[in-house]
């Protein structure tokens, strides 16, 4: 098991989250390095989404710490954490052009960016996601795959310190999922922003991961490279998650 992380961007220590009497995260430790793509695998109900929400500040742990770039953020509101979350169910503004949808997060209260900077960021994100040709199209006229690209673009324009993805490709057609997986792999190389990516798709997990973290029983049950997790799963449950039985 290799858990030596160079220049950590995110450190979770002993994080506990409970819903009522149910323990979801039970003293979870996790360190994510700069530039790393960490895949989080786990069965339904294992707490994968809760983990992302805790990092984003949408869920406050009852114990433990969340540090981002060396600063304790355990009780900081989401807006101060500079992390972006992409869900499988995204929302775009119908009637607005793709351009306006992409620019909107940059016009949020507290962000004082000039129109030139906003334009430049929108163009940059659109180019990376191959949607330059769609910038003036109304959002509701896009295909599912195009909409998901715009949703990712809305996170991208912010240039956050950490990207959190919660099964972003799950609602797409199998074929499209395959294509976007390849694009995401190419994209992350150009970005240099750490990503924590929750999925239950084995191909996606193995293909994208620098490391795979397996969440079970409220803690990280195994963490390591795709190869090591595939070749030496610590439990039968981990093997099953990877489709090995």
């Amino acid at each position, binding site marked *: 098991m290799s858990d030596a992380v160079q220049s950590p961007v995110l450190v979770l220590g002993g994080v506990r989250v409970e819903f009522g009497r149910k323990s979801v995260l039970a003293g979870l430790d996790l360190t994510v390095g700069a530039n790393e793509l960490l895949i989080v695998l786990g*069965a339904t*109900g294992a707490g994968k989404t809760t983990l992302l929400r805790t990092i984003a500040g949408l869920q406050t742990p009852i114990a433990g710490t969340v540090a981002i770039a060396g600063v304790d953020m355990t009780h900081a509101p989401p807006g101060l954490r500079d992390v972006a979350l992409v869900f499988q169910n995204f929302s775009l503004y119908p009637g607005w052009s793709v351009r306006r949808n992409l620019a909107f997060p940059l016009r949020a209260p507290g962000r004082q960016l000039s129109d030139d900077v906003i334009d430049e960021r929108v163009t940059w994100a659109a180019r990376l996601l191959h949607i330059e040709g769609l910038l003036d199209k109304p959002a509701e006229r896009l295909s599912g795959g195009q909409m998901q690209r715009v949703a990712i673009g809305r996170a991208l324009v912010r240039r956050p310190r950490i990207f959190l993805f919660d099964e972003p490709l799950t609602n797409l057609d199998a074929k499209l999922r395959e294509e976007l997986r390849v694009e995401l792999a190419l994209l992350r190389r150009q970005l240099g922003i750490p990503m924590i990516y929750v999925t*239950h798709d*084995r191909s996606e997990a*193995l*293909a*994208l991961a620098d490391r795979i973290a397996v969440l079970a029983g409220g803690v990280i049950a195994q963490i390591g490279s795709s190869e090591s997790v595939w070749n030496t799963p610590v439990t039968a449950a981990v093997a099953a998650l990877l489709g090995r039985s």
Partner: protein
Amino acid sequence: MTFLALNAVAKTYADGTIAVHGVDLAVDEGEFVVLLGPSGCGKTTTLRMVAGLERATGGSIQLAGKIVTDLPPSQRDVGFVFQFYALYPHLTVRDNLAFPLEAVGVPWRERAVRVNEVAAAVGVTELLSALPRQLSGGDQQRVSLARALIRRPRLWLMDEPLGTLDAAVRASLGAFIHEQQRRHRVTTLFVTHDQEEAMQLADRVVVMEAGRIRQVGTPTAIHDAPRSRFVAHFVGSPGMNFIPATRTAQGLCLADGRHLMIHNAASTDVLGPVIVGVRPQWLQVSTDESEKVGLVATVVLDEYQGDHRLLHADAEGLRLVARIPATQRHALGARVILVPHAEGIRLFDPHSGAAL
């Protein structure tokens, strides 16, 4: 013997949108047929017309020798399995599962056996005494699916029933559906956009695109002998690679003058521009610079897949994917030669996309 026959079944909506253009399909009794295609191809509309949930605006549907085109769903004896179901909140999981059997008068002893069997298959045995609200979302969905599968009507219509489940559960439920369908010989029409699911379950696959049937055949036929570029790309994970080339009397020649392969053209062969199709597993990756045939390409992405790797490489702007052993490593940016195996090569018309 044909159990379900669709004759020129069409659906045009009031606003003029054509969802299905006259589809012909004959399904044998006990057969498992999968409608496969991207979203918007008309597969779900076709299924809903068979169920009677959607009215066909053209053609006729025949079920067990009887025209049912205009009959309401209740008079068709079909079981419809959706992705989402409602459970009765005041009934335990066991009673929710037994309910459809009780409704058709199955004796209690058999009910108990079938409830236990289906509960074990979807992995909810330990939840049988729980109420729906005590279950997680995923468990509720498994129970709903189990309840839909416990009935054995003459025809099962399934609309992506495994769509939102975890991969592991999907695989075990897929196997369960398959086993039940075989054992009880319930004729089944199953809709999915996931070609792996289609290949796993189907006796025959119907590939649809833009409201039309593009090909009907066994999974092997669809995979190995696609009749068009669309089918060749849509089926297979990843889909088929396409390489523009010219067929000459000597072989298949690439734009840069290299040969993809040398052979004697048969006298019946049409010479000229073609699209060469080759699946990722039929592309050999070589690093031997002296290789005389094949495409010269640069590695852009290496996707580890546990038991294999998908190597993506660019050849003069053409993106190709090769499926290689997990132990074979190529650095990003490395120059490689991609050589197709002769038996994996398919040719397509560059204009119509039809197989040659």
